[in-house]
């Protein structure tokens, strides 16, 4: 299949992916570091290379409200946000998932105020893990483009009907230029059929869509919503396989295990830091260390069985969180522990908090994490939650 090479930033890759998915309605509100994605889309609409209604709304709350209105009307919709904007639309996130609107949204991961910061961590999206959206975290521009396309296929699947948030690390992915392969429109059309929802507002058969329900019914709706998100497990795999067949780039679905087959020490990551971690794993493997990496791709649905299976023989598992639930631990750590405990596995698990507010996570930091894991695996005492590379305020 024809795929054209292009040198673009992550934001531009998202815009290209969105264009190829042919959304009919795009709603936009700017926020760094997502802005360029929306600028590119508005250019495409301006040039006529994308036939979509592009509406410039007055807030993120309105961006998602408008997307819901369009989706209820039966249109494929796209929007993008980041950080404060994501939090500002928090009410609408729950609304969209409860209303089962298959909206796809890019989120440029960025820290949240206070202190103000435009740089990246995962506290924005992870704090909304319970909003009912499927959440995928990509590593680079190519994965960003590809996941926009996959996201529509997943969200719109009748078993799923759940909105999808495609997360890109702010600046690290959104602003880094990389060569990517752009599939042709014809190839995308063959992979992703146009949006034809079974349930939408219809003049021939009018529908009351968003409504209230009494305690007697509410739980049934929430159960169905849960079933939708659970069904996504299978659908994500199917879509990824189909995507692989169409474009030659499967991603492994919910997560990717790297050199984990005989790994005794496993580090679990999310997002772009996985690239750095992969290099460290390679270097340590060359030194004969049995280390491996798990890159979680989907935080919802969470790769419960997959992680438990990969970590079956691990002597220690480290979880790198670019977020923290203050007074407790990182969200990824909580989720991994739950997956392991649910499977009766109790290796030492260590929570490394790193890269908050855009702080760099260096190779040395990841080496430190593996050192800590080795020590814990050998039975030495360890700190459950540790801030890595804290900087000037530490003793070391």
């Amino acid at each position, binding site marked *: 299949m024809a795929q054209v090479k292009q040198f673009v930033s992550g934001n531009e890759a998202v815009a290209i992916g969105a264009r190829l998915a042919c959304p*009919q*309605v795009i*709603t936009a509100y700017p926020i760094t570091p997502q802005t360029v994605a929306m600028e590119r889309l508005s250019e495409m609409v301006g040039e006529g290379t994308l036939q*979509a*209604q592009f*509406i*410039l*709304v*007055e*807030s993120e*709350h*309105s*961006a998602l*409200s*408008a*997307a*819901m*209105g*369009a*989706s*209820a*009307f*039966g*249109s494929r*919709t796209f929007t993008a946000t980041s950080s404060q904007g994501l939090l500002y639309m928090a*009410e*609408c996130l729950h*609304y969209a998932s409860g209303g089962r609107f298959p909206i796809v949204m890019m989120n440029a991961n960025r820290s949240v105020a206070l202190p103000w910061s435009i740089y990246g961590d995962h506290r924005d999206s992870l704090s909304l893990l319970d909003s009912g959206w499927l959440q995928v975290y990509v590593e680079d521009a190519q994965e960003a483009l590809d996941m926009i396309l996959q996201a529509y296929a997943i969200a719109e699947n009748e078993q799923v009907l759940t909105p999808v948030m495609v997360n890109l690390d702010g600046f690290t992915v959104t602003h880094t230029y990389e060569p990517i392969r752009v599939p042709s429109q014809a190839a995308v059309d063959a992979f992703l059929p146009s949006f034809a929802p079974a349930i939408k*507002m*219809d*003049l021939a058969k*009018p*529908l*009351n*869509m*968003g*409504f*209230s*329900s*009494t305690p007697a*019914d509410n739980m049934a709706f929430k159960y169905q919503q849960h079933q939708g998100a659970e069904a996504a497990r299978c659908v994500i795999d199917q879509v990824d396989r189909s995507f692989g067949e169409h474009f030659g780039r499967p991603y492994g679905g919910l997560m990717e295990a790297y050199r984990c087959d005989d790994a005794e020490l496993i580090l679990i990551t999310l997002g772009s830091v996985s690239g750095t971690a992969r290099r460290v794993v390679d270097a340590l493997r060359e030194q004969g260390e049995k280390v491996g990496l798990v890159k979680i791709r989907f935080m919802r649905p969470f790769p419960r069985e997959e992680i438990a299976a990969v970590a079956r023989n691990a002597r220690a598992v480290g979880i790198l969180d670019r977020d923290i639930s203050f007074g407790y631990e990182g969200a990824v750590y909580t989720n991994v522990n739950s997956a392991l405990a649910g499977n009766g596995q109790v290796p030492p698990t260590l929570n490394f908090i790193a890269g908050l507010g855009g702080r760099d996570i260096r190779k040395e930091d990841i080496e430190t994490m593996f050192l800590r894991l080795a020590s814990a695996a050998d039975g030495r005492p360890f700190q459950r939650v540790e801030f890595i590379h804290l900087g000037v305020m530490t003793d070391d």
Partner: protein
Amino acid sequence: MTEPVSKAAAKPVNARTLTEQEFFFGHKACAGCGGALAVRLALKVLGERTYAVLPAGCMSAVGFIYPQMAFGINAMISTFAGTASMLSGMAAAARAQGLNDVHLIGFAGDGGTADIGIQALSGAIDRNEKIIYVCYDNEAYMNTGTQKSGLTPFGAHTTTTPAGAMSRGAGNRKKNMFDIVTAHGITYAATTSIGHIQDFLNKIQRAAAVEGTAYIHVLAPCPTGWGIATDQTLAIAREAVDCGLWVLAEYEKGRYALTKTPQQFTPISDYLKKQGRFRHLLEKEVEEVERERDERWSYIRRHWNCL
């Protein structure tokens, strides 16, 4: 199928021609609810090719209790702040799908309009979305039990502005939504009252025919919150106009017009005394209300250029 909208809009709707078809029935509004009447009548004018959006508030609460849906047309509850933005998304989708003979209407309360929803409304007017936005004004947050909103009039007792030894009811002035909306240079705006049904029908019809955003602000008394008998809704709505506290007006292409010009005002104290929420007002407070009415009218006479 009903006739295309353009033709329907050309035929004047009045008591005789109003359809018997119901698009809002089986709802659970209180007896005598002015808001419910406004929704019901507006939908009769617009017909079945209409999509409605209602934010949190009484009309969504009484209209969409699963599985008893009260709307015979496509309709949906929006977030409290999101009426105009959800309508905007629908308008965009309608354009994308080439549906240009449908009506998109929102029905929001005074709180949903003048307070939390004003940003989205402002944005939609700014984009000149082809939507009809109806504010049914019952002068308080009724669905949560009669708390003060930005449109609660001076002196009104609400649960958050109680009348007691140290407090005198709502202290501030009713926000002037009509002026706020017309200051945007909106395509069409009108104030009306559910006590003047023909005026309301005319304005909905007018709104349906314009190419762009239309805003209709309808005074819609709430017997429960106002402390009036359930059969007094229309009478009290009329009286608000007769005593000069509410104005029936239109705005289009930069021009203002009154659709009813009272020659002489009926006494404000009569209007206030009929309502439980004003029962505590002292004479000097009534005079204060009167003074403000006169100021408003003198503003209208000076600025609207229509008397």
